[in-house]
């Protein structure tokens, strides 16, 4: 069974472990630094970059405002083109649909194109429970899967690993899942890529069933779009007999023409390339070319919850380019796994609480995993205002009906509530506070309150309460 983020510690705790791992920090810093520089160069090449962002944000706003009719349009077009459309309310339902579809084919080993959504719903484990092995074919996703590791980035899931670590994983694990790593494999990146090519080719040629996600789904035509670099996507999307694509309901773009906006933004912002080497688009089943059975599974899994949040719904414009994590000073120091989710970095800090609700300590800690510097706002191709959403979610955690508050804050509020209910106790407490005032340390409060004074000075507590002053001076007249 693959590892999952279930039971992961809250961000502050996970971040302590991550920031003290020097190898990890070095790997993450090198990777994010490289992508940032490439992206900056390629974005500077477009005099119309800000115009493209305006169009992309508006297009996604249109999709979200009319999501019901766009989804019905997709359903109709895909069905008319020979595909089957399924709807899944949550992860369990999506996993059940896919498991049933794969079982019906009788296949026990299937291939996968990297998909954040299938990671989000834990599809690999659900399939494994019924005896189906789902093999990741993207190099980075395969490194994570072979290493029984967890992803740390949405575009480059193994960015926290260096070449020596990858070589060790290949040598140790490849043989257990098919063709072993070549004898004498070194940590030279071309050699490692070649080892992956040989290992995967064997699987592509015999796979009858493939599972993918999609980057975009065109409402007007029912066309699905997958953008990738290595060709593993093309292998899965064209060599299998049955293709099952799981797509989050927010992945829609209205018209065929609108792809021109997103195709110009995605690779440039994600990896600093003008286009990723391969983009595949297909509409339903194409007789004589590619899979002759196509299933599209439309997945909610919290997206409608996020959609109902007036400030937070803009997070659903996300096209998963990963630029927000590449630019984030917090991500750069902790890497992605500290966020305890397949969506790390700034988008993870807002998307997870929006999808799941901030009701457990791990999810509720995420809106605080930010310095609010706003660099993510500047690089987002669909103009998500991360800082607005982060502040709104902090507000919801602190003031709203989220079941989780800071434990010390919760205990304090409970104690204050009890005292305020009893006037005599309240007056006594206020008098005691005046007397205790000089004894309260100015620079660091003890115990769980200490965090508050890390960056603040404790205010002076007045010797006399307002009530006492009012009484003594007869309302200030004496």
């Amino acid at each position, binding site marked *: 069974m693959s590892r999952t983020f279930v039971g992961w510690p809250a961000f502050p705790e996970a971040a302590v472990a991550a920031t003290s791992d020097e190898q990890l920090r070095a790997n993450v810093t090198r990777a994010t630094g490289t992508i940032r520089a490439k992206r900056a160069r390629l974005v500077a090449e477009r*005099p119309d970059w800000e115009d493209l962002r305006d169009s992309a944000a508006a297009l996604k706003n249109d999709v979200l405002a009319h999501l019901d009719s766009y989804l019905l349009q997709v359903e109709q077009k895909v069905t008319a083109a020979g595909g089957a459309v399924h709807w899944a309310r949550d992860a369990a339902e999506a996993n059940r649909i896919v498991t049933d579809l794969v079982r019906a084919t009788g296949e026990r080993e299937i291939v996968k194109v990297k998909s954040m959504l299938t990671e989000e719903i834990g599809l690999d484990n659900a399939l494994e429970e019924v005896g189906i092995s789902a093999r990741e*074919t993207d190099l980075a996703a395969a490194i994570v899967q072979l290493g029984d590791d967890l992803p740390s980035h949405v575009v480059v899931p*193994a960015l926290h690993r260096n070449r020596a670590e990858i070589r060790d994983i290949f040598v140790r694990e490849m043989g257990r899942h098919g063709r072993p790593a070549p004898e004498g494999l070194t940590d030279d990146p071309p050699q490692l*890529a070649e080892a992956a090519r040989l290992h995967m080719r064997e699987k592509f040629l015999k796979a009858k069933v493939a599972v993918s996600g999609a980057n975009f789904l065109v409402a007007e035509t029912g066309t699905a779009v997958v953008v990738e670099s290595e060709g593993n996507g093309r292998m899965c999307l064209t060599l299998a007999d049955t293709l099952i694509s799981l797509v989050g309901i927010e992945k829609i773009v209205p018209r065929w023409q609108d792809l021109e906006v997103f*195709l110009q933004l995605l690779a440039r912002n994600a990896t600093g390339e003008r286009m990723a*080497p391969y983009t*595949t*688009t297909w509409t339903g089943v194409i007789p004589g070319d590619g899979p002759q059975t196509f299933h599209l599974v439309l997945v909610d899994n919290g997206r409608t919850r996020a959609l109902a949040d007036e400030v937070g719904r803009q997070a659903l414009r996300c096209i998963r380019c990963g630029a927000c994590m590449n630019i984030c000073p917090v991500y750069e120091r902790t890497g992605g796994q500290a966020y305890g989710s397949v969506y790390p970095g700034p988008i993870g800090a807002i998307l997870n609480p929006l999808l799941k609700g901030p009701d457990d300590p791990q999810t509720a800690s995420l809106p605080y995993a930010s310095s609010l510097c706003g660099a993510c706002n500047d690089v987002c191709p669909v103009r998500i205002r991360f800082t607005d959403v982060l502040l709104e979610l902090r507000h919801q955690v602190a003031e709203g009906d989220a079941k989780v508050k800071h434990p010390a804050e919760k205990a304090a509020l409970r104690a204050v509530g009890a005292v305020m209910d009893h006037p005599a106790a309240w007056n006594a407490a206020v008098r005691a506070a005046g007397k205790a005032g000089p004894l309260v340390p100015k620079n660091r409060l003890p115990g769980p309150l200490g965090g508050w004074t890390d960056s603040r000075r404790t205010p002076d507590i007045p010797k006399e309460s307002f009530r006492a002053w009012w009484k003594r001076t007869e309302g200030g007249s004496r």
Partner: protein
Amino acid sequence: MTSARDEILARIRAATADLPADPVEIPRSYLPHAPGIELHDREAVLALFAERLEEYGATVHRAGTADLASALAAALPAGRVVVPEGFPAAWLREWTGEAVPDHPPLPHAELDSLDAVLTTCAAGVADSGTLVLDAGPGQGRRAATLLPDLHVCVVRATQVVSSIPEVMARLDPRRPLTWISGPSATADIEMIRVPGVHGPRRLTVLLVADSS
């Protein structure tokens, strides 16, 4: 019992009840053409197309219609090459290798064992260095351009547009489209670009002038 479909649609309607029913106005002030290229400067478009493809590790040769056959003979390996239906036979007259038809469809293992695939394309995009294949005549099915290690593609100059916005209207979304921008590559290991992972490791483009 409510179906998942009805329930999701109902959740969406409830979640978006506060939003106006009118369509959102979409600004479209981005460039319709490649930055820095004059609209009618065909030579600049073709030069940019070649430059961008080469930047990503593709090999680009330019030929006239008259010397296309010899250029192809030079670009193709001597061995067995899959040539889809509809590829002009006259272009192959100087090449001495074996043209393998994909009709009936070759098994995947057979495609995998061939030395190259030779196709035409549906369009080219200069700004992004992209070829678009749509399974039309001379292009074949998608598997055929994927398994052999070398892809040789003939692009007519009239097929090349400057930008992605220009190419959209030329393409039919009902067809299976493969957009190819340089050969297969990965940057998953320490962000170092390594050419050739699962798709063809080598991409050769023959750009054919329209004149004569």
